[in-house]
């Protein structure tokens, strides 16, 4: 078989790199870069067909025209002008669309701050206080399992607790704290934030835990030996070293909440508008260019937030 020799000689320098060094010439029938393409190609095709091309379509369609029942492939800014209808005329009062985006940002910030607080301390407990590996695994599994069950169920699970006749209200009435049921517990901003925190703290715990577990414990001991207080160690050693996890977790939580329309819909009793909800409403009205225009706006906002965050840390390096 002299062909394999030839291929080996022609092959890219990749062949002699890393673990391939020891490969006998006989095995090298296909060039390594061709094998890589075969291996990674199918996944790339899926992302191309169902993620990258669709994204391009979102941008293109956002500039198309439309009427009551169909898309018209002609350039138009109508998707955007319909979205911002009357916004300039109304100034200095904010129009509905601006209010909606501000509300989304506000919900996003609240959920981010709360999940960060909970996620940090839960991860801290697991990483630094739980000494046995078995316990560490068991307890992190305990936090992970709810993530594997349906989000809608975890949402509606709050209804029997927070409703007018729910456990919380009947409890409060029984101990005489209130005379009539508290109305704002359910179908309110409160219940939306509560459900979002409940659903997505997981995305904060895992990355923070991952970066904390990699911190060399001797660094912390060194800090103590050098006379640092617990707070000083936390601020000057642990937080800087856990920063990648904090940033990755934050990116997850922020992008999920920015695009969410299901939790906000269900827990807000369909009364609270959010960026994702606008897109859904426009789609249901078959106004695809307007939906796409809102998707582009949402994408730009999300992208800006992520760029800001990834300036703090190189995401690729941390994975």
């Amino acid at each position, binding site marked *: 078989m002299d062909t394999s020799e030839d291929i080996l000689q022609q092959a890219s320098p990749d062949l002699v790199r890393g673990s391939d060094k020891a490969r006998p010439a006989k*095995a090298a029938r296909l060039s*390594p870069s061709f094998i890589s393409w075969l291996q990674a190609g199918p996944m790339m095709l*899926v992302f191309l067909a169902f993620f990258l091309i669709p994204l391009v379509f979102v941008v293109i369609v956002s500039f198309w025209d439309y009427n009551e029942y169909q898309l018209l492939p002609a350039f138009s800014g109508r998707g955007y002008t319909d979205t911002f209808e009357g916004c300039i005329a109304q100034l200095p009062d904010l129009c509905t669309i601006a209010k909606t985006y501000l509300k989304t940002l506000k919900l996003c910030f609240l959920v981010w701050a709360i999940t960060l607080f909970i996620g940090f301390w839960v991860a801290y407990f697991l990483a630094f*206080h739980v000494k046995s590996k078995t316990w560490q695994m068991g307890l992190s599994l305990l936090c992970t*399992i709810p993530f594997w069950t349906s989000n*809608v169920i975890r949402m509606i699970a709050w209804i*029997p607790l927070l409703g007018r006749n729910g456990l919380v209200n009947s409890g409060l009435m029984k101990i005489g704290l209130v005379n009539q049921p508290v109305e704002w517990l359910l179908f309110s901003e409160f219940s939306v934030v509560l459900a979002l925190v409940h659903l997505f703290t997981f995305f904060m715990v895992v990355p923070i835990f991952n970066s904390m577990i990699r911190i060399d414990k001797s660094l912390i001991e060194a800090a103590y030996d050098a006379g640092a207080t617990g707070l000083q160690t936390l601020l000057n050693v642990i937080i800087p070293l856990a920063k990648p996890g904090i940033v990755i977790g934050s990116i997850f939580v922020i992008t999920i909440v920015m*695009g969410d329309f299901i939790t906000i819909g269900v827990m807000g009793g369909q009364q609270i508008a959010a960026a994702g909800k606008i897109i859904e409403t426009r789609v249901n009205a078959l106004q695809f260019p307007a939906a796409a225009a809102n998707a582009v706006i949402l994408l730009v906002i999300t992208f800006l937030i992520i760029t800001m965050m990834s300036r703090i840390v190189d995401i690729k390096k941390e994975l």
Partner: protein
Amino acid sequence: MKEGRPRSFYVLAIFFAAYVLFLYGPMIAIYVLSFQGPQGGLTFPMNGVSTYWLAKLFQGTGIIDLGASFRRSLLLGVIVMAITVVLSVAAGMAFRRKFRAQSILFYSAIASLIVPSIITSLGISLEFRIIDDLIKAHWNENFETSMGLLTSGLGAHLTWTLPFGLLIMFAIFNRFDPRLEEAARDLGATPWQAFRHVVLPIILPSVIGIGLFGFTLSWDELARSSQAIGAVNTLPLDLQGLTTTVTNPDIYALGTIISAVSFAVITLALGTIHMLNKRQAAKGSDAGKGLV
């Protein structure tokens, strides 16, 4: 460090316990309430205990055919799981070597994970609508739609499960000792033999983990399905539909059943992983133990 547990341990232990209670408490309430008596309502107190609402689901409630969406979700979940496992392992192997387009694939996966689901979902739906229009204009005027469970729906789910699969593969190969593979090659194994008999047995527990992620992520997926699934519904979509009209505990019964399937899959997968790890520990290495 000091002997014994610092005070912060107890504070954080209580915090952790409260978090776990917060995670599980509401879900347990749902499971309990799905066993309401026939006269029971949506909230506590329980009005008797029965399996009335669970049984009612299987009789069909009339408005929606839950049996059909159950089978659809199951079918889609299994297919997504299989594709996710195969493509993630293959791509994971590719990433052990440098190749061109490596960073394009990496950033596509990360972007797919963090671009809000509604945008991906909308994009897929637009893509298929445009394909439909093209087919209608050029080939077949009576063509209905190319959107469906196993076309646009499958694609939408894969954009969610594949990034997780790829990240898990990165984690596996970060810990993988390439010398094992080199040894196999030195002994004359072909690349396929080295993969089949050396690499695969070692990574198998984590590969099952990828399958677990693939199935449960698809089984519970809602946001990406919402615009991209076509005319049919999956179980989570039916469940979401019920939330706006609900008056009976059958919604909790449905929730309990969806969770039960998730838990069954998790238990099965974790059990298999555990078994494989034990087998690996028992059979893995006999180095230094002398001849039998």
